[in-house]
């Protein structure tokens, strides 16, 4: 009994101490938040059109990437040139049995082979190791089902293209393109400083935070005006009907199989852009950034932040 009582007493006194500390910390945090809020400035950053187009694009890209991997898995090899030189793939996700009889996933790039069991070439679905290019968690739909993957890919291709077209028309018409996306000569002069700032993870404050910096401009500009058109054109080059209409597409990309390889590289460039994009959003303050893409409002920290460190 007594030992229990004293244990309870000990507990309650230490709980009270922790509570005090927590309350103090909470008050301090609120204090700092109030000063931050009173110092910050809300700024209307994204128009409703840009926000809607942005999220439609995000959904399309996710679906097109994953259904594209499903299509790729039907023949998980890429080639360079007009036809498939089956003995010399540029990339091949394959599998083989090891001496113990286990299935190993192999990724072959050029003539170099890597063991990528569990990820590429062979991976488990429902606990069963099976031969497949990309793993089923990365493809849409999950099981091997080319016909369905193609239905997803070509339905969302239309939405992706119409949405992208509307964005470009809107951006030029509203001058968003000229004002915010097109890198200017004066921006390019800051290129070196911007790169250093990025490496040191210093994000702009005050007036400067209202505008995209030059690296952002270059990234957004090249995704919208280079990568986007390239993935659409290489996609169309793989269509035998479109090749009869625009044979020069084959000449530009060096043949249908090269176009397929470039299409694949573009898709992974989109993935790379997406990853950097997300890392930047997290580093720059995810709530503020995400709110600005949902409600349009973006908070700007004061020019000279009163911080001590």
């Amino acid at each position: 009994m007594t030992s229990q009582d004293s244990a309870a007493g000990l507990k309650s006194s230490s709980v009270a101490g922790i509570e005090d500390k927590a309350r103090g910390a909470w008050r301090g945090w609120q204090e700092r938040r109030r000063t931050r809020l009173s110092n910050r400035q809300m700024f209307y950053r994204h128009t409703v059109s840009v926000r809607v187009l942005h999220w439609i694009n995000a959904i399309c890209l996710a679906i097109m990437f994953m259904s594209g991997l499903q299509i790729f898995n039907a023949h998980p090899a890429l080639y360079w040139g007009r036809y498939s030189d089956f003995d010399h793939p540029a990339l091949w996700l394959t599998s083989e049995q090891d001496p113990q009889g286990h299935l190993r996933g192999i990724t072959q790039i050029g003539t170099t082979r890597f063991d990528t069991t569990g990820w590429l070439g062979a991976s488990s679905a429902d606990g069963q190791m099976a031969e497949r290019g990309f793993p089923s968690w990365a493809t849409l739909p999950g099981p091997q089902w080319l016909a369905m993957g193609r239905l997803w890919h070509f339905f969302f291709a239309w939405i992706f293209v119409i949405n992208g077209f509307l964005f470009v028309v809107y951006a030029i018409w509203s001058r968003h393109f000229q004002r915010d996306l097109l890198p200017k000569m004066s921006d390019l002069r800051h290129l070196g400083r911007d790169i250093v700032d990025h490496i040191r993870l210093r994000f702009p404050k005050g007036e400067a935070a209202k505008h995209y910096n030059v690296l952002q401009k270059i990234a957004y500009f090249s995704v919208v005006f280079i990568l986007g058109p390239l993935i659409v054109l290489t996609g169309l080059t793989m269509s035998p009907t479109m090749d009869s209409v625009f044979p020069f597409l084959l000449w530009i990309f060096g043949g249908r199989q090269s176009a397929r390889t470039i299409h694949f590289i573009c898709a992974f460039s989109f993935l790379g852009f997406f990853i950097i994009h997300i890392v930047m959003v997290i580093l720059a303050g995810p709530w503020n950034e995400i709110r600005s893409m949902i409600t349009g409002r973006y908070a700007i920290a004061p020019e000279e932040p009163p911080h001590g460190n």
Partner: protein
Amino acid sequence: MGTDRRNFLARAAAGAGALALSACKGPSETTWFPKVLDSAEVLTKKVQRLFAGSTTLAPEFTKADISPFFKANGTLNPGTTDYNAAVANNFQDWKISVGGLVEHPLKLSLAELRALPSRSQITRHDCVEGWSCIGEWTGAPLKNILALAVPRANARYVVFYCADPMSGDPTDPQYYYESLDLIEACHPQTILAYDMNGEALSVPHGAPVRLRCERQLGYKHANNVQRLELAESFDHINGGNGGYWEDNGYTWWAGI
């Protein structure tokens, strides 16, 4: 088309079936959602037709571009008793009949087919799986054969019936079949091919006669063709989708 793809597609169909049985249903396993996705096929077809019309030619290549190895896909050998007998007798008695909505039903022997004006073309074969091979094809333009049979005014499609058994009860199998509309069927590069790379078509590549329709993906290029039927619609034929793979979820429009 080839065994590889046959096996792959069979596995895919089995996987899809297993998934449909499982309790958790994604949108791909519902009946309504794939129909929504499928609506894009109509748009794709309309827009591609708007650009391509009836005349644009698929790119043709030179002899130097011919694939050293042309992958055979689909049924490598139909292997039925009738087909084996036809092979043994060098397809002497092989007939291609043209019927359905025509004024003059016909039956052509291989010799008669070869006697018709011919066209040779070095073109690229694009499998729906993603690979391509280039080969030279020689055959009779389908347009000329249809002209001999004289399609009726209400004929809209040509349905191709083949000798390769695909699935189902081995004693009463589902044979491969395909269909084209009259625009694609009368395209200058649409031929009933009997030679490949200057030699008589081999069994793995669809002997003795196969379809080439160069603006479409590989599964449209029916092998071992025996019978052509002109039809107003394909609703009443087999699964009602206009082809063997179409009945298994692939789109009828195979332009991309």
